[in-house]
């Protein structure tokens, strides 16, 4: 997540930077998350400053790989993944940002892919559940979910796991209560919350 395009937290920002207050904060708390969009901005300015109508070819960078997809502007990132790229690990539970099953990481931040247009996700780094394991080696969060039985039916699980990864990265899994609150954007109807908590907290404690 780190980027050498972004100054380390203790580097004073340039005096003429109108965003200096924010940058200072961002460097400390959100550096990793902001790095990529800033880096990608110039490229996007030239590439996308035009009106798009109807289906066009979009390029999405998913799990480190560029993928192209034919889609109208109305196609959400979720439907691009599920219906066009056969990346069905990302789930649709409500399609309205009310359940968290569709959670993916965009430039390291967890978002609801059902309320993200695919066209706006171009030039960003998208991480889905399929991109978390390294070959057969599970990501520690995946392994912890397995160990603690942090799921039953498995349908909310990809969203829970990506949310858990982000939750730990954000530093919001330091206590049980904090972790419960910051994992509350992902509904689990099988009611595995107590086990999900154990999984996320274990990863946080090891981090």
């Amino acid at each position, binding site marked *: 997540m780190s980027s050498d395009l972004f100054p380390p937290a203790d580097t004073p920002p340039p005096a003429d930077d109108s965003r200096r*207050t924010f940058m200072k904060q961002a460097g400390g708390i959100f550096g990793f998350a902001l790095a990529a969009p800033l880096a990608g901005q110039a490229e996007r300015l030239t590439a996308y400053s035009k009106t*798009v109508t109807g289906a066009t070819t979009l390029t999405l960078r998913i799990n480190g790989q560029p993928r192209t997809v034919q889609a109208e*502007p109305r196609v959400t990132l979720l439907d691009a993944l599920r219906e066009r790229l056969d990346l069905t690990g990302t789930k649709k539970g409500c399609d309205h940002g009310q359940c968290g099953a569709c959670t993916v990481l965009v430039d390291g931040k*967890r978002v609801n892919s059902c309320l*993200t247009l695919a066209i*706006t996700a171009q030039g960003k780094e998208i991480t889905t559940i399929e991109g978390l394991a390294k070959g057969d080696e599970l990501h520690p969060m995946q392994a912890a979910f397995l160990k603690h039985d942090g799921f039953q039916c498995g349908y909310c699980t990809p969203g829970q796991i990506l949310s858990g990864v982000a939750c730990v990265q954000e530093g919001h899994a330091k206590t049980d209560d904090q972790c419960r609150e910051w994992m509350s954007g992902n509904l689990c109807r099988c009611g595995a919350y107590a086990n999900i908590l154990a999984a996320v907290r274990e990863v946080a404690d090891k981090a």
Partner: protein
Amino acid sequence: MNDFSYTQATSAKEATSLLKDQPSAAYLAGGTTLLDLMKANLAEPPQLADINLLPFKGIEQTSDGLRIGAMERMSDVGENALVVQQYPAVSQALLLAASPQLRNMASIGGNILQRTRCGYFRDAAFPCNKRVPGSGCPALEGDHHNLAILGVSERCIANAYPGDLSVALAAFDAVLTLENQKGKQRRVPVTEFYLLPGKTPQKETVLEPGEMIVAATIPSAAHARRSAYLKVRERSSYAYALASAAVGLDVQGGTIRAARVALGGVGAQPWRSREAEKVLTGAPATEATFRAAATAALQGAQPREHNRYKVELAQNTLVRALQQVAAT
């Protein structure tokens, strides 16, 4: 969802001119409100102007107070050290709202413009005066257990703004900077930004067609530094408020020198209560004072059968919030 055209605007001018050519077009920021409505076919803009690259960013100290760019995300603002230190109630309102994912997406401007959760508004199969003026309001005699009791009209009892941030902004005298299609900016206090439903519940804010929110500026004040946001809901998280209170107190020697009070979940708009502030100002910081302030705040309430409980709940919420702040 209709098949709209999409334009990535690179400047405010470009964005506003798109809406000049196509008045029913819409600005796309975080998308958490707009796409939600579009999926329910409650909004069908033929064109979206993506304003995410517009430079309405930054959280910076100005002579007027802390200026927060409208394109900042809720999560970033909620955890910003300046906001946390100078406006705890604003930070808490942001972080108690929605979910971490939605807070990462939603912009400050978009949050201020979110729409009611009234079930009759959200479902096009129902009549709704806000959606289709003159069609009626089944909520009056129907399900209104989480609708408003203050500032309502016979046409609409929705809490038009169901969120949290604007409640805190209203309490602490925040001023919105708006920019119109001519590039001209104007400043509107949050307390004057929202409109009461009256006979025209479809008109919710003073925003003119094509006008956009550029920033929110919150004046610096002792009562803002000593503030809190308390939210009561039907589940512990990821839910809209039944009642909430943003309060700030400047207490010296046990006497309240200045107070700010706004309520959420109970008003047709974020409900600043100057009546409560009047009771508090100059009075001792005691439970009796807080109780009197709460009574004053709910004086004009017009509850109905299923939201009558909100009078007591909002009063108790306000008292508790004041107690919490007084104890800090």
